[in-house]
């Protein structure tokens, strides 16, 4: 199942600089996208989301951009901090469709390991 892909397994960034994590998807039925952060031996922690009717959503240091025509989203973290070091997952959902065949299940990417160096 390659409907959601994060092509960069890892990213290394200096503290204070921008981190850009990328995600591509193939399913045009996806209309809601989320980013989760995960530490080892913990569950995914919700960071930020975006609906398909928007192209940008911002929350503090985190901004998600959605390019529907390219089926691409990205997460920007500015400025990056050492505490941001974790695995970042993008996830997508078709929502609840009129045919009643989708009930909000999330499809995840493989994750990108972000390391922020002091």
């Amino acid at each position: 199942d390659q409907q959601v892909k994060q092509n960069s397994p890892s990213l290394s960034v200096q503290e204070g600089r921008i981190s850009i994590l990328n995600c591509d998807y193939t399913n045009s039925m996806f209309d809601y996208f989320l980013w989760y952060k995960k530490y080892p031996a913990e569950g995914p922690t919700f960071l930020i989301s975006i609906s398909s009717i928007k192209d940008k959503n911002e929350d503090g240091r985190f901004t998600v951009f959605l390019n529907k025509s390219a089926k691409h989203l990205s997460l920007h973290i500015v400025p990056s901090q050492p505490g941001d070091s974790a695995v970042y997952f993008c996830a997508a959902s078709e929502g609840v469709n009129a045919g009643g065949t989708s009930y909000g299940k999330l499809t995840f990417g493989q994750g990108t390991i972000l390391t922020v160096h002091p």
Partner: protein
Amino acid sequence: EPEVTQTPSHQVTQMGQEVILRCVPISNHLYFYWYRQILGQKVEFLVSFYNNEISEKSEIFDDQFSVERPDGSNFTLKIRSTKLEDSAMYFCASSEAMMATTDTQYFGPGTRLTVL
């Protein structure tokens, strides 16, 4: 801040044994999910549950799996006869509403299941 809790944190079992993984979703949430992550692989959807019935399930969720909400707070995943390949982290999640354009699933810390 309300959170999803899961017990146990780690379960070790022998192949062929039954296991029950437990979850307490966030109290005002109505939609419940189980996902799993096999080591080194993606987080995979297993099943969604609403109004005391399964809404959607994946191909992974075969007859060996079942879910139940036995009371007003717990949500369980049962694996009847465990296989080696069931070894994974199992995550429970809940959401307030299933309008995905406005809603978010919140995850528990996970149960690590090891089948020997």
